């Protein structure tokens, strides 16, 4: 451990340092040296066993502060002290904290600008996809069937397990919560209406959309973002392959075609879950349950669900691919854009769902 002693003499004091003036041996010497108020004329280093740049820095600072001369320094100490002297400069550790008022205003402004450019970008991207689709209609041979079928598997088939489980449980929860409330009016048989209509019109498709956004929307963004980083997309462009045709259209088609199927599947699984609860807990036998479903669900309810699904699929694929294309710079961007893709997809899906609800009730599909 390092330590020091002070002596007062005729020609001013001597401050003697000894021990190991290094990071591990520093202890509280730095603080105590800071507290030295006397004006030693000489700092004596001859007692030091070892010194490193931190020690050299401390000695250097002390000498500057007190104006003392340094004596007894070893070759090592002299070399290190000249190194730290050369490295002395005003360096801030953290950036200057900005004025809070200005910061709030800038952040609001930045967020607005980002929102507007994103919106503009999305519209432009949608346009680019339409152009690519038209080109594919004119030259159907360029359609990449293999890629599309592969996407069907990833977006649709592989999602069956998780979406089935989720919908089944949601069906049970709706039935259970509905039954508790409806029992107060002695109308637990209406639980069937609740399950049937709620899942076919809304929840089946909406929950599927949220799941697909989380599973496939994010993976679209991450895949395309990574390809952007590794310059694969630039390579594609240089050999004349349109990334929109090769990457975006297959994903878009897969999502548009798979969403109604998954939505319908989710609806049916929810109904099975709810039906199971009705059977076990409310003693409504499956046959009665199905009969009642037929009576209370109009066919339009099914259309309401199934017609929304492809639109949601398109939104999810589009935001995912769009955000992936926005990646630039470093790997951190991939994560940020993936998050943005999922958040935007779910947000737009829910906003559109509200529009659909109003629209369908206006045209009399109540």
């Amino acid at each position, binding site marked *: 451990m390092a330590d020091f002693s002070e002596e007062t003499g005729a020609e001013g004091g001597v401050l003697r340092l000894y021990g190991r003036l*290094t*990071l*591990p041996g*520093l*202890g*509280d010497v*730095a*603080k105590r040296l*800071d507290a030295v108020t006397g004006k030693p004329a000489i700092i004596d280093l001859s007692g030091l066993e070892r010194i*490193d*740049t*931190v020690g050299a*820095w*401390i000695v250097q*600072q002390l000498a500057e502060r007190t104006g003392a001369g340094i004596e007894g320094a070893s070759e*090592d100490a002299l*070399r*290190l002290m000249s*190194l*730290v002297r050369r*490295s*002395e*400069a*005003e*360096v*801030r*550790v*953290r*950036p*200057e904290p900005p004025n809070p008022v200005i910061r709030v205003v800038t952040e609001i402004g930045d967020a607005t600008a980002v929102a507007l450019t994103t919106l503009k970008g999305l519209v432009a991207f949608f346009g680019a996809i339409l152009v690519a689709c038209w080109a594919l209609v004119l030259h159907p041979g360029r359609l990449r069937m293999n890629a599309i079928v592969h996407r069907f598997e990833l977006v649709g088939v592989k999602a069956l397990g998780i979406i089935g489980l989720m919908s089944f449980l949601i069906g049970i929860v709706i039935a259970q919560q509905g039954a508790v409330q409806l029992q107060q009016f002695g109308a637990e048989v209406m639980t069937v209406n609740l399950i049937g209509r709620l899942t076919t019109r809304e929840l089946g498709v909406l929950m599927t959309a949220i799941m697909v956004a989380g599973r496939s929307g994010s993976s679209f963004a991450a895949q395309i973002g990574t390809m952007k980083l590794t310059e694969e997309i630039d390579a594609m462009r240089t050999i004349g392959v349109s990334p929109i045709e090769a990457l975006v259209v297959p994903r878009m088609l897969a999502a548009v075609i798979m969403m109604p199927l998954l939505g319908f599947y989710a609806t049916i699984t929810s109904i099975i879950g709810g039906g199971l609860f009705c059977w076990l807990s409310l003693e409504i036998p499956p046959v009665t349950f199905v009969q009642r479903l037929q009576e209370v669900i109009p066919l339009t309810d099914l259309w309401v669900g199934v017609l929304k699904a492809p639109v949601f699929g398109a939104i999810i694929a589009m935001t995912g691919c769009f955000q992936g294309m926005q990646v630039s*710079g*470093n790997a*951190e961007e991939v994560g940020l854009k993936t998050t943005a893709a999922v958040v935007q997809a779910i947000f737009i899906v829910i906003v559109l769902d509200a529009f659909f609800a109003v629209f369908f009730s206006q045209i009399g599909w109540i």
Partner: protein
Amino acid sequence: MDLGDPIAIRVRGVCNRFGEQVIHDGVDLDVRNGEILGVVGGSGTGKSVLMRSIIGLKPPEDGEITIFGESMTSGDPAAQLDLRRRWGVMFQGGALFSTLTVAENVQVPLREFYPQIGRKLLDEIAAYKVVMAGLPPNAGPKYPSELSGGMRKRAGLARALALDPALLFLDEPTAGLDPIAAAAFDELTRNLSKALGLTVFLITHDLDTLFAICDRVAVLADHKVIAVGTIPELLATDHPWIQEYFNGPRGRAAMDAVDRHGAKGA
């Protein structure tokens, strides 16, 4: 620095494999105190894996590694933790913590190992280390994403030097730098190693770096260290890879450059 032992790192019979793929099969290597040892080898010969084994990120499957007389492979964890204070590592891309500024990055090891250091001294240490690594003073409060590749490497070096290590590991310090920045980095490495009395373990592909600053060079090939020595010593061996490496067109150009430079200097 254990003056009694002239060997800083002693690697004996180290074996590493990933699944079926054998990387090292009995690697022996000594790094002497105070030298700059360059490690070369073709792509995939396990230069980085050897470094990761030495610093304990990938314990070898077999063999013995001792650093300053302390075993990394069988010693007790407390002694190994103590060893960690005595080396600094600069990874290829700098590996800076992206949520911290450059100066805060330098402070991380200091805070971790010496929590008793006061805020003022901590800021001062970070400041002079940043400048010592050749960064401009205004780089201190910047975030890694705002830095160029060369500056990121220097910031990585500043962090590696934070604890005043006796041993410095550099993984391809000049890769991806333009020739001017690479030469400046070489000079910085040599000056710092001289001024701080550092032992440097340097992985590189850069022939200029080898000729300019390395005291000795170790060649990894055929899962082993096939030769260690100064460049003239290596040239005297007749291993085909070594001959091709140093006597290839690039090797010759680097050698000529040193000769010209040396002639001018003398």
